[in-house]
């Protein structure tokens, strides 16, 4: 029997799994990993959360987690998805927000219900101007809206609040 890796080790292995659609972010940055448990039979249980209900990346992420664990010699594991409490962009880490902005995607501007209701000010990830306008609340993936900067005139993606 292979000794189980400590939770810290599993965490660092999972931190290597990238989001399939925004490859600068790890799934840890996105707040997708709820917790790591030890199952009754001693196996590793990774509990994750889907982001959007219909996000096609969810299944890819599960497969990528499985591949990454196997690559590190962990073969006895289970990946479980839980939807409650619902994932929120508030769970994106500050490191994740920094990486998003560097990549050219404006990170979620607000928190809680006010943001969900559309009361948010979005800064341009290129020139940092707050003088921006929304083009559409729906974009290239479920999690993004389309914006344009009225100062530097660049169009950009905005990771919208949920």
């Amino acid at each position: 029997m292979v000794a189980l890796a400590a939770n810290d080790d599993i965490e660092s292995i999972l931190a290597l799994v990238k989001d399939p659609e925004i490859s600068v972010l790890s799934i840890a940055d996105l707040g997708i990993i709820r917790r790591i448990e030890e199952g009754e039979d001693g196996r590793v249980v990774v509990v994750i959360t889907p982001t959007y209900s219909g996000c096609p990346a969810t299944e890819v992420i599960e497969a990528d987690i499985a591949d990454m664990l196997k690559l590190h010699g962990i073969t006895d594991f289970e990946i479980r998805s839980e939807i409650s409490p619902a994932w929120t962009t508030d769970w994106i880490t500050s490191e994740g927000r920094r990486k998003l902005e560097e990549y050219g995607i404006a990170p979620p501007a607000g928190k809680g219900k006010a943001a969900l209701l559309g009361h948010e000010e979005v800064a341009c990830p290129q020139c940092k101007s707050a003088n921006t306008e929304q083009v559409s609340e729906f974009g290239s993936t479920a999690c993004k809206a389309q914006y344009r900067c009225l100062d530097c005139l660049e169009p950009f993606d905005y990771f919208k609040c949920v």
Partner: protein
Amino acid sequence: MTDKDMLFDYLLRLGDNSLILGQRLAEWCGHAPMLEEDLALTNIGLDLLGQARMFLSYAGEVEGKGRDEDRLAYFRDTKDWRNLLLLEQPNGDFAKTMARQFFFDSFQYLQFEALSNSSDDRLAGIAAKSCKEITYHRRHSSDWMIRLGDGTDESNERMQRAIDELWGYLPEMFEMDAVDDAMVADGIGADVAGLRTKWDAYVNGVLAEATLTRPEDSWSVRGSREGKHSEHLGYILAEMQFLPRAYPDAKW
């Protein structure tokens, strides 16, 4: 019907609503009046598909006959579908698609808000998650009602025609039958009849801002809960179910 049968039927209603409307929205892919709307309609359709998967998976488990989400989506015939008649109506022009969406988004938002307090934890979890997405859907369709209603003479006329054509499909959303009553009594389901006042207040507000006229309640149709559908559902299923029925063991 046993309690289990009723919960199964209730979950089918929720899942079928999402799946059929999602399928209708997918028909717009590549055909919307502008690129941003093409993306918006398919994104909303994808959210609905995600909801449908969660409801139908759960329904299959409750039923306990080994049917998974795909089996329920691809191998049921029209009489076994429980989606509202409104949602299977053809897309028509962009105004009609948006009016149908607006009426349903406004309803689904309230329905799911109520369901997020369900005594059934799994159902409550699905509803709470979906409710956030529906907030975006409802804002999108409400904006379009106002933009088209309070737009040009032609856009106003076409939007008014769309709501007139759909109006009689709306009372079915608020209908309660024995399954709904049992689900409400158990603390599982939502009292949709009780949501009518809130729905009216929201819809009236948007229609007024859009300079559109709320139609008279002069006609209505119903029957989806008993599997009585319009002819349109058969065509939707024919397209959606063809591949898995022609190649039942195909994996993709």
